[in-house]
């Protein structure tokens, strides 16, 4: 049957075909590096430098992972990374949530200026501040501790801003109803505001986590002893071996590095996407 709508059907088919191809292309573009990292980490050194490269390892081996653990005191670096990341997230939440609540719900003298300062802090890159901060840390004699990696990140401008936006979506009536229910400000914050801003809070936490976990430049500048360095710097050290770059070992190190981030992202992806969509609560 030749209907007068054939042209429309063909066009729609073509559009969905192009759309699918494009999505597939993007998927490959983003996933291939991950795939390559995983595959290489299970290859032997020889297998990693053959030409042409193979998509799958000839001989599957865990040798690279063993080497990572024997070459480095990995547990020490892992411990540093975990302490720094957890401390940063906890402090950021303790400071950011009340700050965002105050910015969103109270009118007080200087609120506009203070919010503008927060936004300004949001825009200043760390490369501008690191020398002054380094001098400050040195004067405080904190350089051989983890504090320089934690304290400067105690307040996140981005987090305060995002949470403020989420809190502003909570209808005033609900807060007033809670006040009539004899709820104090802390209770309103924890029982009313935070559950309403759950997905934004998760996004903020995730970004803090990734930022802190992957942080390379800042700890490199702020530490001069191995005992306070995080995992990112350790992985870097796998590179400077005399026998040239051992790709499987570096990739194994990266696997260890990236795994927690990937896991958390997979578990939380729904929340993150919904928070990015600025869904209101009605």
């Amino acid at each position, binding site marked *: 049957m030749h209907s007068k709508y054939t042209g429309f059907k063909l066009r729609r088919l073509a559009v969905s075909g192009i759309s699918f191809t494009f999505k597939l292309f993007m998927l490959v573009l983003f996933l291939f590096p991950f795939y390559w990292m995983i595959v290489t980490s299970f290859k032997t050194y020889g297998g990693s430098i053959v030409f042409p490269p193979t998509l799958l390892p000839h001989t599957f081996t865990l040798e690279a992972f063993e080497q990572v653990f024997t070459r480095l005191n990995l547990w020490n670096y892992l411990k540093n990374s975990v302490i720094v990341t957890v401390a940063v997230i906890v402090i950021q939440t303790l400071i950011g949530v009340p700050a965002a609540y105050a910015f969103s719900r109270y009118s007080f003298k200087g609120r506009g200026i203070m919010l503008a300062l927060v936004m300004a802090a949001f825009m200043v890159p760390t490369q501008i501040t690191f020398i002054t901060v380094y001098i400050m840390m040195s004067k405080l004699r904190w350089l051989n501790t983890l504090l320089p990696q934690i304290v400067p990140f105690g307040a996140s401008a981005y987090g305060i801003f995002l949470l403020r936006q989420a809190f502003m979506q909570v209808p005033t009536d609900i807060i007033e109803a809670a006040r009539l229910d004899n709820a104090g400000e802390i209770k309103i914050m924890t029982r009313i505001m935070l559950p309403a801003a759950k997905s934004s809070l998760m996004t903020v936490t995730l970004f803090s986590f990734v930022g802190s976990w992957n942080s390379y430049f800042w700890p490199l500048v702020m530490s001069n002893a191995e005992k306070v360095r995080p995992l990112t710097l350790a992985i870097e050290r796998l590179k400077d071996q005399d026998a040239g770059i051992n790709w499987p070992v570096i990739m194994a190190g990266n696997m260890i590095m990236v795994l927690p981030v990937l896991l958390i992202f997979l578990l939380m992806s729904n929340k993150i996407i919904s928070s990015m969509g600025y869904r209101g*609560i009605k």
Partner: protein
Amino acid sequence: MAKIEFLDVHKSFGSAKVIENLNLTLEDGKFNVLVGPSGCGKTTLLRMIAGIGPATKGQILLDGEDVSNIPPGKRGVAMVFQSYAIYPMMTVRQNIEFGLKNNRVPKAERERRISEVSQVVGLAPYLGRKPSQLSGGQRQRVALARAMVKEPKVFLMDEPLSNLDAKLRGAMRSELVQLHKQLKTTFVYVTHDQVEAMAMGDCIILMDQGKIMQQSDPETMYRDPNNIFAAQFIGTPPTNIVEIGSENFKLGFRPETIILSANAGPDRAFTRRVKIMTREMLGAETFYKLCLEDGQEAMARLTNSSLAEGDTLYLQVDEDNLYFFDAKGNRVRKTGSQHYDAMVERVKRSHES
């Protein structure tokens, strides 16, 4: 149970003065209705009682005690919001329980009250649900249950029925009246709907532009208005107001008191020749828009639907059904005014001239 008093209350938002020098007493145990057009200050008064929008100046007394410095949660009042304002992330039970927990009511007592209240409002099967899984009417009940469970001295309601459909609104209206009869607590109910006010209130407080125009029971409000505003706000269609030649007073009469006939009876106080402009047949009654000879208009509300557009008839109103208002719009009553009889006389003669 509480009497509520406003003493010299002022409220301004920035430079805009919403309420000035207001004095008002709401009697204990009554179903008080604050009614008026939007922006008249009725919700502002309600928020003052609740403590979530304090007065700029003046005192609010609950049972003789100044509550101006008592936080909202400790005043013994409960409020039902127009938007219901139920906590979206809590279940129905948690919503109802939240206030009790904050007031440290013991667990056994909480359980008892929750099951009792949820029976009364018909929420018992839904205690485990989230608000998003409830219909509009059920959410309204959650808001009501949350207020009832606190066993407050005063119930505050801010247009609680305005988000419901017409049928449900009618049903909830009588349920609320019933609830008030059971609880015998002071209710303060805000609405812009005069029908709701008349149907529900023991005591109506009619407001306009931050001032109280009249405070009385519904019957008096309808039969004996204090001013043109009250006469026109209550009743559908509103009271007709006409001017009599160059007199310095105005005459009012309700559309339902008009007598339309082909021949003018001799003993009626107010008579005019009128022409029917439009006719709206509403079933039991028919509204007619009338044009007086001098160009003024009036509405009539009659059970007689047989009159037609273009008919020319006599409009008549008995003396008992006439309201006289002075130039400022305030009522001039038979008792207390020596000019009253003269005014009636002038109205009678105005037709003959």
